[in-house]
C-alpha cells in the first residue's frame, strides 16, 4: 500500500532518544525524509 504522492503527510508527534518531541509541523518549509528503520540489528 502506498499513499498517493501529493497527499498531505501524516501528522505525528514522536519523541527522540534525547527526549525531544518531533512533529510534522516543525519541518514545514523544509524537505523532510523519514527513514523507517527495520530492527536496529
Amino acid at each position, binding site marked *: 500500500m502506498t499513499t498517493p*504522492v501529493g497527499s498531505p503527510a501524516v501528522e505525528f508527534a514522536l519523541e527522540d532518544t534525547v527526549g525531544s518531541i518531533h512533529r510534522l509541523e516543525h519541518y514545514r518549509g523544509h*524537505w523532510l525524509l523519514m527513514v523507517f528503520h527495520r*530492527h536496529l540489528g
Partner: protein
Amino acid sequence: MSQLRQREGEVAGLGLRIVVVTFEARERAEEYVREVGLGWPLLIDRRRVLYRAYGMARGRRSAIWGLATWWAYARLLVRGHRPRRPTGDVNQLGGDVLVDPVGRLALHHVGTGPADRPAVGALLERIRRGDRD
C-alpha cells in the same frame, strides 16, 4: 542509510532534514545512536502508529531471507562490519517517506524486503528539481 550518510554534505546543501524512525525500545535506540554515531534524530514509534499509517508492513519469511538480504550481509562483512544478533522484530520492513516543504508527500516507498530502498542519488536529484513522483 549508509549511502545517505556518505552524502551528508550534499544533504545539508539541499536543506533536507532527515529523521530516522524505529519501533524498538528507547534503551536499544540510545545504544544504536552511540554505536553508529547517528547524526540525525532517531524517533521512537513503539506502537508503530506511523509505520502502520504509511503501510510499512511485516514481511514474509521468503522476502526477509531472500538473496538480496544475504547479499547485503555479505557486503557488510566485506566492509568489516559484523552483524549482531537482532533483538527486535526481524519481520518488520522499513521504507522511506519524502515530504515537500508544504507538507505533501513527494515519495512514498514501502520496502518489499530488507535491502529494498530507493536510490539515494535519484532521491537527492528529485529534491534538487523540486519534483514529486
